[in-house]
């Protein structure tokens, strides 16, 4: 029973270890592609296992350290699906002759274990360790293209700022522990209303927000994002701009709604500011970018801002909207980076927006996919991006956050501009005299990756019902467990009537 709660994690760990064991035994000259296929298989299994977890009765395991509920399963599915797509995109984009591909895939699998644990952990210690596993593996993956100075530079920047953020996050946990004497999320929520040192908890909230703000690249903690996205290999960016971020958002939700609901009045304004600054700064900076990857990096900052809008509405809809936004965001982002990793090439020889001019004339299908993802990022109806934004802002408006909603939607107008710049470039004729670099044939795996993410984006835009239901169920579990205080009040109110 305990093992069932961490079944996906177990599968992925075993697979990762197996790859590491087998990899040295393979002949030096042999292709490492089969390890990629194997990891795809493992990820599918993990996805299935997560789906199977839906039928488990929600509950905790391992002495209340992990919790399986609709919320964790939702994010499990999201993360497994995203990593699956990223893996598919990576198999043929990375150089097949490289000898460290076994490690590459093993790192992805093990990193995914960390992300999955982040979403299901209800003990801050496990959250922290999961966060570190996923972070460290992404630091390494970012520097995987070692021959390029940029890649390793991205790695060091990511590493230093990520660790810096970790220290803040940890400080926040320490102060929470100081205020409540526990690091279990439910216990914190229960102890918080009675603490003698609430000011510690308030400080903790701020520090945790700084720490996780870095991880989700919310402005003003976003400084690493553009450089890292630009420098890291595109298949890795497809992964690290999506799954770890979704996991970090899950942690944010879990911590703030699960542990700190009783001091909500102290933190919602922080989210307000963070959201507004992220949206505005991200979009304004994206306007000036020439590099496609940098532009998308800034856009991801803006998207983090949109998502944070959902946090300001302290409601079930808010959680559901945030979860759903995370889902849509990863679907479209992993897709667009899958395209970029193919078009730009492993060494990013095509990087600027002008390089992408006339892509429609060279490979119409890829270009169509990219255009579709861009439209979703803009938030055009019948794509996931639209509904995501819609839910987030409707949740915010239900709490009367008019200012934030208006800032957000004006921002989405600004954002449309730079996405369109790329979009129109795709469909323009290539500039005269510029060398037309051939895009290599798309491999089946990449096609599959793009197809998966595109269909996910489309389905989320047309029939969002089932995924939204799951998000709402997850939100329900989180919102209930997060309110022992309210439950206590109800008991008190019930008492006289008996």
């Amino acid at each position, binding site marked *: 029973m305990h093992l069932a709660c961490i079944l996906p994690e177990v599968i992925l760990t075993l697979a990762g270890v197996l790859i590491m064991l087998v990899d040295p035994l393979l002949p030096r000259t042999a292709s490492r592609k089969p390890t990629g296929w194997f990891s795809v298989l493992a990820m599918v299994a993990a996805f299935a296992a997560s789906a199977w977890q839906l039928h488990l009765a929600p509950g905790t395991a391992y002495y209340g350290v992990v919790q399986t509920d609709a919320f964790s399963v939702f994010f499990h599915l999201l993360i497994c699906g995203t990593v699956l797509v990223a893996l598919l995109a990576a198999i043929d984009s990375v150089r097949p002759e490289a000898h460290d591909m076994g490690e590459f895939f093993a790192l992805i699998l093990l990193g995914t274990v960390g992300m999955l644990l982040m979403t299901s952990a209800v003990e801050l210690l496990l959250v922290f360790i999961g966060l570190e596993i996923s972070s460290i593996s992404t630091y390494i993956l970012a520097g995987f293209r070692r021959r390029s*100075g940029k890649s390793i*530079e991205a790695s*060091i920047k990511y590493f*230093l700022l990520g660790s810096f953020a970790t*220290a803040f996050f940890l*400080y926040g946990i*320490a102060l929470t522990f100081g205020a409540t004497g526990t690091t279990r999320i439910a216990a914190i929520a229960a102890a918080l209303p009675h603490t003698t040192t609430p000011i510690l908890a308030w400080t903790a909230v701020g520090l945790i927000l700084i720490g996780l703000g870095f991880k989700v690249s919310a402005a003003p903690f976003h400084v690493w994002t553009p*450089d890292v996205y630009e*420098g890291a290999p595109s298949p890795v960016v497809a992964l690290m701009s999506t799954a770890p971020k979704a996991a970090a958002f899950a942690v944010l939700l879990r911590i703030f709604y699960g542990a700190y609901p009783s001091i909500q009045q102290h933190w919602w304004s922080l989210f307000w500011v963070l959201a507004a600054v992220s949206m505005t700064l991200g979009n304004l900076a994206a306007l000036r970018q020439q590099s496609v990857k940098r532009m998308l990096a800034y856009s991801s900052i803006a998207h983090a801002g949109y998502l944070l809008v959902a946090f300001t509405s302290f409601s079930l809809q808010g959680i559901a909207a945030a979860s759903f936004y995370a889902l849509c965001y990863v679907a479209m982002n992993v897709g667009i980076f899958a395209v970029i990793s193919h078009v730009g090439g492993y060494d990013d020889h095509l990087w600027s927006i002008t390089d992408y001019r006339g892509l429609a004339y060279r490979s119409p299908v890829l270009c169509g996919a990219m255009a579709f993802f861009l439209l979703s990022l803009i938030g055009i109806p019948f794509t996931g991006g639209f509904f995501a934004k819609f839910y987030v802002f409707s949740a915010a408006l239900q709490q009367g956050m008019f200012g934030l909603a208006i800032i957000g939607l004006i921002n989405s107008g600004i954002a449309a501009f730079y996405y369109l710049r790329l979009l129109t470039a795709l469909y323009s004729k290539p500039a005269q005299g510029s060398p037309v670099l051939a895009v290599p044939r798309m491999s089946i795996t990449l096609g599959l990756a793009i197809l998966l993410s595109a269909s996910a984006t489309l389905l989320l835009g047309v029939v969002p019902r089932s995924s939204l239901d799951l998000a709402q169920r997850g939100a329900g579990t989180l919102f209930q467990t997060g309110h022992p205080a309210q439950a206590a009040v109800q008991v008190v109110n019930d008492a006289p009537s008996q």
Partner: protein
Amino acid sequence: MVVPIAYYLVLSAILFSIGVAAFLIKRNIITVFMSIELMLNAVNLTFVAFAHQWHQVSGQIFVFFVMVVAAAEAAVGLAIIIAIFRARNTLNVDQVNLMKL
């Protein structure tokens, strides 16, 4: 034989702040990384102090895990630093700027 817990916390806050300051102004990547270690150590002190206050073992265990994490980070971080030295032949953060910040 008493010292207020708050003194320990203030000490840890001082160390943490010095760590942040060092992170911001040091120019050698290794030293920058060391300032992160200093920050983590400061946090550890907070944990131990609170563990003492609450008579809770879990606070100390947290520190134990932080040490493990710090060790893992050190291994990876130093490997990255070696790799960047190979690629760029410098350890100055200001010269690690192929991409504009």
